[in-house]
């Protein structure tokens, strides 16, 4: 998987939040790659570090308290971590854009939606105000909203419509990488499907790479090429979709599948993973998952597992597999 087609390579990225109550290791030594046109799913429970990863790529981790401690984010051959804010601003919204989780709050309530789309156009393209507005209307049409509504304010739209506006903002400048942070979580189920369809279509139309952050394995199966499972700041399993669904390796991943209610089976009860996510300031020693792990061994509490390639393109961070390799 190390060829030059990769649009984005994340190498050993660590992001910490340093607060009075202690340090939160939100992202620990992360390694990911996304090729052109590919979609990567980033899956995990709330607090696993998915959003931090996304913000890290945009270099928008709130600082303080957040800080990129180490590692590289190589985008189109250049390390974003080393770039200045003004260089980054040229990339944000232009080459990399982001769709946020909650459409109800991610639009500025006192600006018309047209202006909000036009703003990003004006920032990155050499256009005048009229052209920017025209482009905004065009984008609205593209996401299925009549262009004439560009003078309306966000509160005049429903949640699904707002998310469409957010998508329009994100795609207004033909980004090469789109980061979608749980874009459908806050929406009604029926709307979710529509929005996902829309995203998939537009992604193909613009040939955009995408990082899809979600805790919804259904969504992953539907849209993603590759999947990274995160737990307490670590990518514990990373492979392509098919392999993940056919042969998940990490006990946590297996646990996740176990907790999905299966409509087709008669079993009406979920099998939730026992225990809770660890306190982010006080992550267990060794493998952070070991207190909840059904297959935990003594060593799990003592040593951190390394990233192990169990088969080509399938990485797992688990001592079970480290041992077999040895």
């Amino acid at each position: 998987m190390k060829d030059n087609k990769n649009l984005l390579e994340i190498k050993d990225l660590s992001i910490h939040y340093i607060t009075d109550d202690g340090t939160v290791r939100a992202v620990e030594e992360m390694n990911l790659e996304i090729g052109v046109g590919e979609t990567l799913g980033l899956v995990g429970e709330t607090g696993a570090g998915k959003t931090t990863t996304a913000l890290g790529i945009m270099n928008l981790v709130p600082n303080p308290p957040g800080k990129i401690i180490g590692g590289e984010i190589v985008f189109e051959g250049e390390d974003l971590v080393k770039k200045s804010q003004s260089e980054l601003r040229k990339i944000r919204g232009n080459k990399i854009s982001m769709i946020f989780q909650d459409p109800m709050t991610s639009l500025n309530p006192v600006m018309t939606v047209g202006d909000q789309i036009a703003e990003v156009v004006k920032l990155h393209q050499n256009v005048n105000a009229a052209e920017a507005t025209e482009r905004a209307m065009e984008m609205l049409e593209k996401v299925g909203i009549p262009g004439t509504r560009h003078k309306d304010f966000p509160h005049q739209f429903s949640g699904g419509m707002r998310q469409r506006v957010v998508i329009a903002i994100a795609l207004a400048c033909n980004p090469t990488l789109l980061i979608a942070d749980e874009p459908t979580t806050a929406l009604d189920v029926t709307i979710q499907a529509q929005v996902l369809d829309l995203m998939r279509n537009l992604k193909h139309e613009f040939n955009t790479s995408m990082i899809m952050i979600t805790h919804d394995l259904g969504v992953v199966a539907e849209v993603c090429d590759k999947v990274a499972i995160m737990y307490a700041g670590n990518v514990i399993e990373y492979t392509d979709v098919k392999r993940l669904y056919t042969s998940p390796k990490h006990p946590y991943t297996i646990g996740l599948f176990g907790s999905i209610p299966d409509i087709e089976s008669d079993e009406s009860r979920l099998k939730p993973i026992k225990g809770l996510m660890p306190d982010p300031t006080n992550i267990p020693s060794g493998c952070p998952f070991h207190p909840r792990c059904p297959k935990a061994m003594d060593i799990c509490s003592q040593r951190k597992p390394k990233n192990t390639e169990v088969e080509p393109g399938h990485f797992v961070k688990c001592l079970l597999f480290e041992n077999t390799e040895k």
Partner: protein
Amino acid sequence: MHKYILRRLLMLVPVMLGVTLIVFTMMHFTPGDPAKIMLGESAPEAEVIKLREELGLDDPFLVQFGRYVFNAVQGDIGRSYTTNRPVAIEIMERFPSTLKLAALGVLVSVSLGIPTGIISATRQYSLFDNIAMVAALLGVSMPNFWQGLMLILFFSVQLKWFPSSGFSTPSQMVLPALTLGTSSAAIITRMTRSSMLEVIRQDYIRTARAKGQAESIVINKHALNNALIPIITVIGLQFGYLLGGAVLTESIFSIPGVGRLMVESIKARNFPVVQGGVLFIAITFSFVNLLVDILYAFVDPRIKSQYK
């Protein structure tokens, strides 16, 4: 919107009637005979009785109140007991000074408070923020009149930069405006900071940043526009407070404003002026509040859509 404003204006009527009743009652049952006060300590009894009759002070309470309201509706709010001039004229002569003072005070507080609040919010817990917050808290804690005296001591007595009394030339307005402005600047600073902090945490600020927008525009446009509503509320309240609360500042700096007129009139039992004054300030205050509510609509489209 027009309907909304009209309705609000109509709602003023019962409120004003209530204000009149309260003040009228209070003045009525206040000990001290205005006739005696007008005539001074050396006037004969017969003249006091004569004057009481002239002023209608012996009529029953409700008759006096009814007469007042009846005349007030026709624009006549009586004559001052001391100068025998129409109260409306007395107040209107004094009002420009008070309005000027309050407006300048608000101007000082806004131009000081909003930038400081913004910088404090964007650099939360920085040295600047800490100093500004302690200063703001001290500003809130400092008695206004005390601060006025200090400013006089320093700027007019020591440095001789500004005069210590009067209110007709710009240089005379500096110290009163500062006295009045700084304490509300402190309040506005605190409000701006907390409101900005609240807004900066919002998702749409992140959206703006993710668009590649420059930080200064993110703060001054996206964040500030959203943070303005509570700030405007505070400014409106401060303006009203300054209108009434300019009393102390007006007396320290010998400013011929409504506030001082009121205090003098209360002391002199000059009922018509007190009533007229309170009514006048209450109306002004209510208008400012209405203006603030209209401003909300101007700032926030969500509120505008509610004003139907």
